[in-house]
């Protein structure tokens, strides 16, 4: 589609570098065969991805930035694999089998939504790889390797507190919402670590808002299925904090564990001053629930600002769904 803007967002100098590198290669400089092939067929995205790895192998990307990209990649692979399992397109057949029951319950419009979201998560994986991220936790799902346990038990055989997501549409959507809202908080928490690389920061912000769009749509589907649950706003925003912000109507067979998970997703991080609960109404030292001319109560003030989480807080949320350790 719009490849030029995408490339510019990744690195404003990339076109120059690409051209220079192509010239070097044309002049006999060494490049891995894949790069030469990609440049020869004029495939800019493929050449970009290959050249980025080529450049980063020379150590041009700062470690702090690389760490953020690697972490983001892990989260995106998880999300992508989750939706692939739900849609029945995973490389690991047992995932597809496990979600068959709930898949049959998804209405056509909601199914299209899940397909659209999965398409974006797959694109995020590709974009992060092209920007220099590496799959440092070896999360590649193959026909014989399950890297995730979507039931939250860190086991290829499942059995965790979120198992109901494979058999119940409402529960599945609660999990999807939790995953998207976690993604929003995770990217927000990492933005500050990308400030020295404005082009990468911008790409991360552009992924961040896509995750927020996903979360909004999932919340709206859930509200339409639970019209009496006012905590689920039709505006797609987050009301309240801790477990209440999930607007959960079904806690499955292990309510304590699911509630604890939602408390982490919507609650305060370990550094509560910087990463408060979604119930927070104090922004930059200003109580936004009592501003003159904008006194709409605490709930609107909570909804008007999303909160961030630090990396360790996000790891604590998602680790139960990853079989490998990602700390």
């Amino acid at each position, binding site marked *: *589609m*719009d490849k*030029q*803007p*995408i490339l*510019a*967002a990744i690195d*404003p100098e990339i076109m120059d570098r690409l051209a220079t590198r192509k010239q070097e290669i044309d002049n006999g400089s060494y490049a891995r065969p894949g790069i030469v092939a990609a440049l020869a067929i004029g495939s800019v995205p493929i050449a970009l991805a290959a050249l980025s790895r080529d450049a980063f192998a020379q150590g041009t990307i700062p470690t702090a930035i690389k760490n953020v990209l690697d972490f983001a990649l892990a989260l995106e692979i998880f999300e992508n694999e989750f939706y692939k399992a739900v849609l029945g397109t995973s490389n690991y057949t047992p995932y597809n089998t496990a979600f068959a029951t709930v898949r049959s319950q998804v209405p056509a*419009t909601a199914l299209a*939504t899940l397909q*659209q*979201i999965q*398409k*974006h*998560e*797959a*694109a995020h994986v*590709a974009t992060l790889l092209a920007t220099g991220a590496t799959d440092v936790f070896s999360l590649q799902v193959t026909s014989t390797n399950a890297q995730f346990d979507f039931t939250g038990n860190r086991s290829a055989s499942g059995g965790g507190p979120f198992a109901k997501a494979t058999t119940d549409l409402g529960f599945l959507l609660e999990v999807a919402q939790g995953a998207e809202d976690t993604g929003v908080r995770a990217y*927000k928490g990492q*933005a*500050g670590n990308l*400030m020295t690389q*404005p*082009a990468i*920061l*911008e*790409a991360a*912000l*552009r*992924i*961040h*808002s*896509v995750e*927020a769009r*996903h*979360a*909004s*749509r999932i*919340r*709206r589907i859930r509200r*339409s299925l639970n019209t009496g649950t006012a905590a689920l*706003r*039709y*505006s*797609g*925003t987050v009301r309240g904090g801790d477990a209440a912000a999930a607007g959960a109507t079904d806690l499955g067979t292990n309510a304590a564990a699911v509630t604890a998970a939602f408390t982490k997703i919507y609650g305060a991080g370990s550094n509560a001053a910087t990463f408060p609960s979604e119930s927070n109404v104090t*922004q*930059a*030292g*200003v109580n936004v629930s009592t501003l003159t*001319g*904008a006194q*709409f109560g605490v709930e*609107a*003030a909570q*909804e*008007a*600002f*999303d909160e*961030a989480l630090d990396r360790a807080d996000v790891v604590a949320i998602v680790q139960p769904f990853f079989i490998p350790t990602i700390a």
Partner: protein
Amino acid sequence: MSTHDTLIIRSGDQLLQPTTRRRFLGLLGVAGSVVFLPSVFTACSDDDITDPNNPASYTLNLSNDTGILNYAYALEQLEAAFYTAAITSAGFAALSAAEQEVLADLQKHEVIHREFFKAVLGANAIPSLSFNTTTVGNLTANATVLLSTSQLLEDTGVSAYNGAGKYLTSAANLLVAGKIVSVEARHAAAIRDIRDARGGNTGRLFAGDDVVSASGLDVKAEPGTVLASVVSLNVVTSPLSIGTGPTGTATADVKAPTPA
């Protein structure tokens, strides 16, 4: 350095002329003199950037965080004014209860954003903007135009924050901008979803291919692009403009699409 050049500045505007500015800067670097006639200082005394009657008050200096936050404040003023008019409009009355809940939420959130920026900017805040009530009336006259305008405003807001984040120098300011942009994205998805349900019912418009690229990236626009879009709406009557651009490298724009 035997020659002693003198440049006489009679008015503030003269400094903005390229030839004068070049000489002015040149003289500062050598042993020249610059004479400001009293008229210059008279003009400067009117140059109160918080004065709503002074056009200079609406000229943004985007070279620092205060300017970027004022830019955000201007956009939030626009959104807040639009939704405040919207929730009493004929277009709103034609919406379902579930749709009205969205617009009512958006009005509260945008007014909160506006007042938040006003509070944190304090004495550095630009004045309140003025709006064209006729245009706003036209853009809220029925459900169709109300929803398409809302979509454009929300997508534009997302593109603005996504494009301006890289110019912020304070991590705390970036964090606050991040807390707001995801809410704008939630709004945009909700409005798009309403329009989808009223139209094609594709289940995809909330983050449609018109607004999320093949690389999975949302819209972004540089401040100049956003302000040009805002001006073209003919809603803001105050002379909002950019005096000094952002410090940093601009990226290619992927503008908020015109609602189909």
